C-alpha cells in the first residue's frame, strides 16, 4: 500500500509539472505578443524588458487600424474567407453525398482522389497555379485567390463531410426516395438538416484555412485593394525597420476572430480533427 500511495504522489507531481511546462510553452509567445502590443514604443525597446506594460496604451491599435492599410487587408481576408467557405461547403456537400451514400462506378477512385488532393501541399501548386491565374487574368484579384484556396478547401470539406454523412442512417434516404423525393431533395431536406453540426465545423475549418493562408496570398495578390492581412503583414516585415508595437497590435486584431470561433467550437473542432484524419 505504501508503494501505491507513493506512486500516486509521484504521478501527481509529474502531471502538475508537465501541465505547467505545457501551458508556459504554449502561452508565453501569445502573452508576449499581447503585452508588446500594449506598450509604448519607448518601453518596447527598453532593457530589461517589462513583463507588464508600465503605462498600458492602445496607441498601437489606433495606428494599426487608422494609420495604415491594415483594416482594409483584414476586410479583404474576410471577404475571401467568406467566399471560400460558402463555395466549398456547397460543393463539398454535393460531392460527399454520392460518395458516402450511393453506389456508382468510380466511387472508390473518387474518394481516393479527394484524399490525395487534400494531402497535396500548396507549395507543389503555387507556381503552376500562378500561371493559370495569370492566363485567366485573375492575378491580384480576390476572386483569383478564392479559386486558389478552393484547391485545398473543397477536397478537405468533402473528405470531412463524407465522414459525417456516413453516420446518418441510409434508411432515411431510402424512405424519402420511396416518397418520390429526388436525390437533391434528399440531400437538402433529409441529410443536411441532420448534418448541420458537421457542416458548421467544416465551414469553420474552411474559413480558418482561408483566413490564415499565406503562400498563395503572397504570390497572387499584391495591391492594396486585394491583399489579405497575411500578405499585408509580410510586406511590413520585409522592410528594414520593424514597428513591433504596431505589428503586434495588428497580430492581436487578426487572431481575435479565429480565437473567438475556436474557443466557441473547441469541442467540435477536436472531434472533427480526429474524425477527419483517422477514421475508425
Amino acid at each position, binding site marked *: 500500500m505504501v508503494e501505491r500511495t507513493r506512486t500516486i504522489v509521484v504521478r501527481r507531481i509529474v502531471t502538475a509539472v508537465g501541465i505547467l511546462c*505545457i501551458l508556459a510553452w504554449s502561452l508565453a509567445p501569445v502573452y508576449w505578443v499581447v503585452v508588446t502590443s500594449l506598450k509604448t514604443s519607448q518601453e518596447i525597446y527598453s532593457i530589461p524588458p517589462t513583463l507588464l506594460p508600465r503605462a498600458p496604451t492602445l496607441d498601437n491599435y489606433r495606428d494599426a487600424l487608422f494609420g495604415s492599410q491594415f483594416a482594409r487587408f483584414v476586410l479583404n481576408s474576410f471577404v475571401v474567407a467568406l467566399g471560400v467557405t460558402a463555395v466549398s461547403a456547397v460543393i463539398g456537400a454535393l460531392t460527399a453525398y454520392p460518395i458516402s451514400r450511393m453506389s456508382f462506378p468510380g466511387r472508390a477512385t473518387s474518394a481516393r482522389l479527394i484524399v490525395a488532393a487534400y494531402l497535396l501541399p500548396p*507549395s*507543389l*501548386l503555387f507556381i503552376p497555379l500562378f500561371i493559370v491565374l495569370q492566363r485567366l487574368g485573375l492575378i491580384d484579384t480576390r476572386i483569383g485567390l478564392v479559386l486558389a484556396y478552393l484547391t485545398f478547401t473543397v477536397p478537405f470539406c468533402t473528405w470531412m463531410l463524407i465522414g459525417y454523412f456516413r453516420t446518418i442512417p441510409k434508411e432515411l434516404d431510402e424512405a424519402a426516395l420511396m416518397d418520390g423525393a429526388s436525390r437533391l431533395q434528399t440531400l437538402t431536406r433529409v441529410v443536411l438538416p441532420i448534418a448541420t453540426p458537421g457542416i458548421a465545423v467544416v465551414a469553420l475549418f474552411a474559413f480558418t484555412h482561408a483566413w490564415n493562408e499565406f503562400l498563395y496570398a503572397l504570390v497572387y495578390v499584391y495591391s492594396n485593394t486585394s491583399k489579405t492581412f497575411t500578405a499585408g503583414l509580410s510586406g511590413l516585415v520585409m522592410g528594414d525597420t520593424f514597428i513591433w508595437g504596431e*505589428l503586434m497590435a495588428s497580430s492581436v486584431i487578426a487572431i481575435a476572430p479565429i480565437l473567438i470561433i475556436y474557443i466557441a467550437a473547441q469541442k467540435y473542432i477536436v472531434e472533427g480533427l480526429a474524425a477527419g484524419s483517422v477514421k475508425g
Partner: protein
Amino acid sequence: MNARAVPAGFSSPPPPERPRRTHRPDWLVAYMFMAPAAAIFAALITYPLIDGIATAFTDRAIAQPGKAVGFANFAGLFADPVFLHSAWNSLLLTAGTVALKLVLGLASALVLSQAIPMRGLVRALAFLPWAVPGMIASLAWKWIFDEQSGVLQYLVLSLGLVDRPVYFLSDPAIALFSVAAAMVWQGLPFFTMMFLAALASIPADLHEAAAIDGAGGIRRFLSVTLPQMRGVIAVTVMLSTIWTFNSFEMVFVLTGGGPANRTHILPTLAYQYAIGESHLGLGSAVIVSVIPVFVVLIFLLTRRMLRQDLD
C-alpha cells in the same frame, strides 16, 4: 406524390399506379453532383500539376513563355550548392521537428489525459498555438528572437547562459534551430490532439488486464498504449511530414532564407527562383525534384486513411 395522401389499405379500388418519377439512374445523379468538384479538380489541380512539371523543362519566365531546355534546369540545380544545401535543410528540419513533435506530443497527451482540474480549459490553452495563424506565429517568434531588443536575447544574457549576444536568426548555424523551435511550437498541438483522441479510444479493460497481470506503468505504456496507438501515430507522422516539409512562412518570415541563402528550404528557394527572380522554369524544377517523395507519401497515407472507410 398523390399516392402518399391515400392511407395504406384504405382504398378498395385497385391502388393507382404509383406515380413515381422516372428517376435518372444513380450513376448519372452521382456524376452530376460531383461535377463542380471535378471541374475544380481538373482545372485547378490536375492541369496545373501537369503544366508545372512541363514548365520545369523550360526556361519560362514571368513575362515570357520560354522554350524547352530539356533537363538543363535539373542539371543546373544539382550542381547548385544553394539547392543542395536547401534540400539538406529541408530534410534536417522536417526529420528533426517531426521527431521532436512525436516525442513531446506523446508526453503532453499522456499528461493531459490525466484527471486534472479544469481539464477542458487546460486543453484549450495547450492547443492555442494551433489556432494562431502561421503568419502571426512567425511574427511572434521573430520578435522573440530579435537580436537587439528581443526578450530571449535578454534572458540568455542576464541568466548568464552566454557571455555575448546570440545571433538567433542571422547566424546560419543557429538560425535553423530557432526556426525549428518555432515550428515545434506551432505543430505540437496537432500531435497532442491526435494522440489524446487515440488514448481515449483504448479500451480500459486492456489496461486493467495488464495491471492484474502485474504490469507497471511503463510496461503498460510500452505493451498496451503504444501498440494500440500505432495507426494514429503513423498517420500523424506522415501528415506532419508533408506539412512540415512544405511549411513556408516560418522560414520566409524568420530568416528569409538568409544570410547568404544558407537557411533556405526547398519551398522558399522555389519561391525565390520562380517569383523573386522570375525564373518560373527553374522554380518549378525545384518543386518537381521533390514530387516523387510526395507521390509515395500521399499514396501511402491515402490508402491508410481510406482503409477503414470504404466498404
